[in-house]
C-alpha cells in the first residue's frame, strides 16, 4: 500500500509512504476511498470511523491481520532486534494516517491518496 501526502494543490506529492502488508480493502471506510484524494477534514472524519470490514474469522486470520510484521516491541526501538507480530490492518492504517496528520496537519492544503 502506498500513501501519497500532498501539501499543495499540484500533482507532486511531498512524500510517499510505502507500507508492506496492509490490505486497505479490509478497512472501513477507507476501502471506499482508494485512489482518490482525501482532504484533511475528511481524513479526520474517516479516522473516527475506522474499523475492520467484518469480525475476525479464526480460520482466515490473514484477512484481518497483517501477519508476522517485524516490530520494535516494548521500548526496544532503534535496534536490530525486532519481534514478529500480527497487527490488524485497520490499526496499522490508522496509526500511519494519524502520524501523517500529526506531521503534516499544519498545512491547510493537506491531502492524501491511498493506492
Amino acid at each position, binding site marked *: 500500500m502506498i500513501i501519497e501526502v500532498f501539501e499543495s494543490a499540484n500533482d507532486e506529492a511531498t512524500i510517499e509512504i510505502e507500507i508492506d502488508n496492509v490490505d486497505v480493502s479490509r478497512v472501513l471506510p477507507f476501502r471506499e476511498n482508494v485512489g482518490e484524494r482525501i482532504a484533511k477534514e475528511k481524513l479526520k472524519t474517516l479516522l473516527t470511523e475506522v474499523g475492520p470490514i467484518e469480525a*475476525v474469522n479464526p480460520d482466515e486470520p490473514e484477512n484481518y491481520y497483517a501477519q508476522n510484521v517485524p516490530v520494535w516491541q516494548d521500548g*526496544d526501538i*532503534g535496534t536490530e532486534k525486532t519481534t514478529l507480530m500480527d497487527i490488524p490492518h485497520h490499526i496499522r492504517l490508522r*496509526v500511519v494516517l494519524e502520524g501523517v496528520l500529526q506531521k503534516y496537519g499544519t498545512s491547510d492544503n493537506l491531502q492524501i491518496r491511498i493506492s
Partner: protein
Amino acid sequence: MAFLSLDEFTSSPDARFFKGTWIVEYHDRTHLPKGTYLDLGKVEIEGCTPDGNSFFRFHPPSRGCLKQCIHDAWKDENSNEKTETNAVKVILDQLGESMVRLGILQPHFEISDCKFITERPFAVVVLDTNALRNGAVRHLQEQFPTTQLWIIIPTVTLMEIGEKAATIKSRANDNPRPSNSALIRSRPQVTIASQAVKWIRERFPTETLELVPELLRAFRGYETRRDDAYKEPDRISINDRLILEGIKDLRRQRNLPEGVYLMSGDKDMSWLARLEGIQTIYPDLPDIQGASDGINSTRYSAESQTDVVCSIHRFLWDLTHVFSKIRVRKCSDNLQKCEKLELFYYYPTKLVNDWVDDKLEVTGSLGSSSTAETF
C-alpha cells in the same frame, strides 16, 4: 498475591486484559493518605490478537480533573495551590516520559551542529541521568539509523543514581506529605536509569567517563561541608559541572574537536553546555495533553519504516516503577465487585534478586471473558 517478572506477568491468566475500558489509578504512601488512589487515566483495549497481544489507546487525565482529585485527596492535609499544581505537572510529565521510554511517543531532538550527526558515520554521546531515564538513546538511534553511536556514561551519572536511591529510601517511611509528590520524579532516576544502563551496555559500544581528579577534589568536597557560614553549592550543579569538564577533557585527550555530544534531558544544562562550545542533543518530550483522542499503543516509524508496539503489560510495568502502586480496574460503579489488579513495585520484602529480576507484587485478577481472544 504473586511476585512476578515481566514475562510471568504478561503470560499470567489472571492478567489477561480483554476488550473494554479500564481505569488506571495509583497510590503512593509517601504523599497520599492511606487507601487513596489518584486517577492516572483510562486504557481502552481495542482487542487482542490470537497470540495474546493487546492493542490499546491511553487517555491521560485532564489537568483540571487531576488537580481536583489531588485537592480532594489532600483536603485535610497541609496542602496548597502551588503544591497541587506542582504535583499535577510531575504526574503528567512522568506519564509522558513513560510513553517516550516505551517508544510510543517520540521526543523532538534539538541538536547543535545537526549536520555532523547526519553526515558522519559515528557520534560519541555522553549521557546524563535524565537522558538515561527517558530512553532518548533509543529514539536517537531510531531517527539516525545509519549513525554508529558510541555511548559514554559519566561516573557522576552513576553516582547520581546511588544518591537518588538513598534519598528515596530515607523518605520512604516519612508520614505522607503532599510535597513528597516530587519523589515520583526521582524514582525513574533509580530503577529505570539503572536498567537503562544495562540495556545500553548490551546494545552499544559503551564506556565510562571517569571524573577529572582535580575537579573531583575541588567540587565533591563541598557536599560534606556543614559550615553554616558557607553556602553549599547545589549538588546537581556540581554534577553538571563535572560532566561538562569531563567532556572537555575527553575531547582534549582523544583529539576530537567535534562529534562528542552531551545528551541531557535538562534544558538548562543543554544551553549552558552549548554556550561553552559543547555539542548538545536535547530531547524535548511531547505534552500528552495535546493528544485529544488518546495515545495509541502502536506507532509507525517513518524513518525506519518499522512499527513500534507497546504491550499493556509493559506499559503498566513502567508505571509501577514511577508511581509505586498501580490499580487497574474495569469501568464500573461497584469497586468491590469489579475485576481489578494491583501492581506494587516497591514492596517491603523485595530481595536483591527481585530487584535485579525487576519483580512486581501482583494482587487480584481480571477475570475472564468470551471476548478475551479477539477483537
